[in-house]
């Protein structure tokens, strides 16, 4: 059970995919994408954990600390979070415009582009 954080974040990714293939509301699809993003971010940030490590910041760090948590995954996660935010914002904007045109958010009804 030592790897629970990895497993949990992967389950979160799976839940996001489940939402994407079972839900029909565009807002819920956006939430599904966000859930996957959060799962991946959780996965990334938990990769860098070192047992007993402190935050990788030297300002007023406790003298005589043993380990520091890996800083790279935190930097990557920061980037990934902002990217996820940008994606979500744009998708919501599209959802708003689609609702304006069609009067519905049901993905089952928004399928003019088929065939």
């Amino acid at each position, binding site marked *: 059970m030592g790897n629970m954080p990895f497993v949990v974040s992967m389950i979160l990714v799976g839940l996001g995919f489940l939402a994407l293939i079972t839900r029909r509301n565009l807002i819920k699809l956006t939430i599904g994408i966000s859930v996957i993003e959060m799962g991946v971010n959780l996965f990334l940030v938990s990769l860098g954990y070192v047992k007993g490590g402190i*935050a990788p*910041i*030297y*300002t*007023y*760090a*406790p*003298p005589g*600390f043993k380990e520091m948590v890996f800083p790279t995954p935190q930097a990557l996660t*920061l980037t990934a979070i*902002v990217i996820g*935010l940008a994606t979500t*914002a744009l998708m*919501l*904007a599209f959802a*708003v415009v689609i609702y*304006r045109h069609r009067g519905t958010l049901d993905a089952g009804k928004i399928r003019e582009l088929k065939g």
Partner: protein
Amino acid sequence: MSVVVRTVTRVILPVALAFGAYVIMHGHLTPGGGFQGGAVIASVVALLVVVYGGARLKGAKGWFAVLEDVGALAFVLLAFLGIGATFFRNVLAGSGGLFGNPVPQPGPNPGDLNTAGTLPLMNWAVGLKVIAGLGSVVLLLSLFGREDG
């Protein structure tokens, strides 16, 4: 929104702004940085939109667009600063000038605001960008499709 919400907003507003500015300014010393502090200040914009309605803030839309571009330009120009060596070279670090102090002593230390070269400047550029970017997203979404927008 009700009087309570408006009053609380007025109380929270300066605190949140100061906290955001602090987070941005101390990005190279304490947890945080341009994105985090920018998000804090952008949440103030969101609060204002919720409390007073987007229509009263629509004058800020153009300003946000300009500030966003200015922040991004400042960031990329700071990156161009190092082109003498390589793109993104931190030329100000250790140069002795503004933000050019070395770290007082390696290892744990109280921190010196005057260190880290281009990092604080980049934090400010990114902070400006995030404030303006998130602010304008919130504002645009709240104004869309309204006659007074």
